[in-house]
C-alpha cells in the first residue's frame, strides 16, 4: 500500500473511527487502563491520519523508502587518472600530443608544471592557457603557452591535455587569444585574463551524483 495513496488514508481514517467507536461504546464498563489505552490509540490514529493527508498533499515523503531515509543513490568520486606524462621528471617541456599537427601552431605548446604537481598525485590542477607571451610558473596551476598562426584551430586541446596531465575540465584562465580564447570561454572551459590568485583551487576528484 503506497504511503501517499488514498487506500492508506482511508484505512487510517477507518481505524481512527473504529477505535473511537469502541472506546465510546465500552467506556463506562472498561477498566481505567483500557480507557487510557483507548484514548492514546485514538489520539495516535488521528495523528497518523492527519500526517498521511498532509504528506499526500505536500509530498515530503512520497514513498515508504523515502520515509525510511533511503535515497537509492550514492555520490561517488571517480579517481583522478594519472596523466600519461606524469612520469616525466621535467617541470617545463614542449608538449607534442598526437593532435599537435591538426592545431596548426607555430611551435609545440610550452607546458610548465607547478611545484606541487608531483607531490599531489590525486589532484587535478586548473590551467592557465596563454596565446602569446609565456606566462610565469603559477602556484597550483598548469601553464600552457601556445603560439597560434592564422590557421590555428584548437578544438580537442582540453581533452588531449586531460589525457596527458592531471588538469581540470573547467575553471581555466585564458590569456589573450582573440577568437581562439573566445571559443574556450563560449565552451564554458574558462574565463579571460584573470589573476592567477583568482583561479579555482587544485582539488581531489569531487564526489558526484548522477546527472539525470
Amino acid at each position, binding site marked *: 500500500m503506497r504511503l501517499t495513496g488514498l487506500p492508506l488514508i482511508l484505512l487510517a481514517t477507518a481505524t481512527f473511527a473504529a477505535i473511537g467507536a469502541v472506546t465510546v461504546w465500552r467506556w463506562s464498563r472498561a477498566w481505567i487502563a483500557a480507557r487510557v489505552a483507548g*484514548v492514546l490509540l485514538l489520539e495516535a490514529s488521528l495523528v497518523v491520519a492527519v500526517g498521511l493527508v498532509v504528506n499526500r498533499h505536500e509530498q515530503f515523503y512520497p514513498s515508504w523508502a523515502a520515509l525510511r531515509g533511503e535515497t537509492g543513490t550514492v555520490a561517488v568520486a571517480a579517481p583522478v587518472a594519472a596523466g600519461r606524462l606524469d612520469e616525466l621528471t621535467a617541470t617545463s617541456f614542449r608538449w607534442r600530443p598526437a593532435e599537435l599537427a591538426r592545431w596548426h601552431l607555430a611551435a609545440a605548446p610550452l607546458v610548465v608544471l607547478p611545484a606541487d604537481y608531483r607531490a599531489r598525485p590525486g589532484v587535478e590542477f586548473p590551467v592557465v592557457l596563454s596565446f602569446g607571451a609565456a606566462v610565469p610558473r603559477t602556484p597550483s596551476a598548469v601553464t600552457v603557452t601556445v603560439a597560434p598562426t592564422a590557421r590555428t584551430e584548437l578544438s580537442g586541446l582540453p581533452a588531449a591535455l586531460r589525457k596527458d596531465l592531471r588538469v581540470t575540465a573547467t575553471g581555466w584562465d585564458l590569456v589573450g587569444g582573440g577568437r581562439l580564447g573566445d571559443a574556450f570561454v563560449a565552451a564554458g572551459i574558462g574565463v579571460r585574463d584573470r589573476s592567477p590568485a583568482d583561479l579555482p583551487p587544485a582539488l581531489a576528484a569531487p564526489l558526484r551524483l548522477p546527472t539525470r
Partner: protein
Amino acid sequence: MIIGLALATVVATAVLLAALWGRLRPIGRSALILAAALSVVGTATVQVNELVQAYPTGGGTPAAASSGSLLLTVSVPGRLTLPMYVYLPAAYRTGHGRFPVIEALHGYPGSPQTWLRRLHVQSYLDTEIAAGRMAPTVVLFPWQTPKRLLDTECTNLRDGPQAETYLTVDVPAFARAHYRVRTDRAGWGLTGYSAGAFCATNLALRHPGEYAAAASLAGYASPGITIGDGSEKTLNNPGWRLRHLPQPPIALWLGWAGDDRHSARDSRHLAALAHAPLTVTTAVVAHGGHSDAVWTRMEPPSFDWLSAHLARPT
C-alpha cells in the same frame, strides 16, 4: 527532552480523562478533552519543529570540532539585525590569507540550525576539506527572516523585511569586515536547500556581480509567495529571468530527488532554459522526496562543486 515532556502530558491527560470521567460534570469533562487535544497538537508541533528547527531549542551550538574547525555565533546588524553562524575551517586559524565564502540559506519553515543539527553541515564540510575535495572555505549561515513563520524567500518584501538586501549587502559587508575572506565576486558563492535553494538561485541570478556560483538542493523556479510588487512573476522568478533577460556568467548546480515532483519539474525547467554564459550542472538523487535524507546526500557533492567554481584561498 521537550518531546519527552510533551508525551508525558499526552499520557497524563489520557489517564486523568479515564480516571476522573465518572466524577466530573460536563464542564470538567470538556476541559479535560480540550487539554488532551491540546497535548496531542502540542506534541505533534514539537516533533515537526524538531524536524525543521524553525524554533531551535536547547542543546546549544557545537563550537569547535576535533577537526579544528570553528562554528561561531554572531549578530549581524543591517536592514535586519539577526544572528548568524560562521564556519571557519581549520586552516583559517593557522593561515594568513583570505578564504572563499559560501552563504548557506535555510528552508521554510526552518533556521540556520537546520543546517547544523539536521544536515550536520560542520562534519560534512570538515570531511570534504580534509579529503582535499574542497578548498578551506568560510561558510555563513544567516537567518533569512526576522519572524520565524514569515516566508521571505530571501526577497525584499514590500512593506516587510528587506531580506534580499540584508543577505546580499549587510551579511557580506559584515563578513568582509570581521573575517579574512575574499572580497571579490569570484570568491563568493551561495547554497541552500528547499526554499533556501530557491533563494540561492534567485539571488545569484539577480546579483551576478556579487556571486560567481550557486548550488540549489531541491529548489524551485518561482518563490511561491506574494512579494507585494508582483515581482514573484517576473524579476524574482528565475524561470522568467532565464526566458526574458540576458543570462549572467554564473555557474549553477541544480540537484533534486526524482520523486520530489515539484522541485524536479522546476529544476529540469531551469536547466533546460539555461544557456551560455550561464552554466548548469545537474545532480539527481533517485528518490527520497523533499527530506533531510536527500539534502544530506547532496551536501558533499554540492560543496565540492561549489569549491571548484569559486576562487581559491589566497
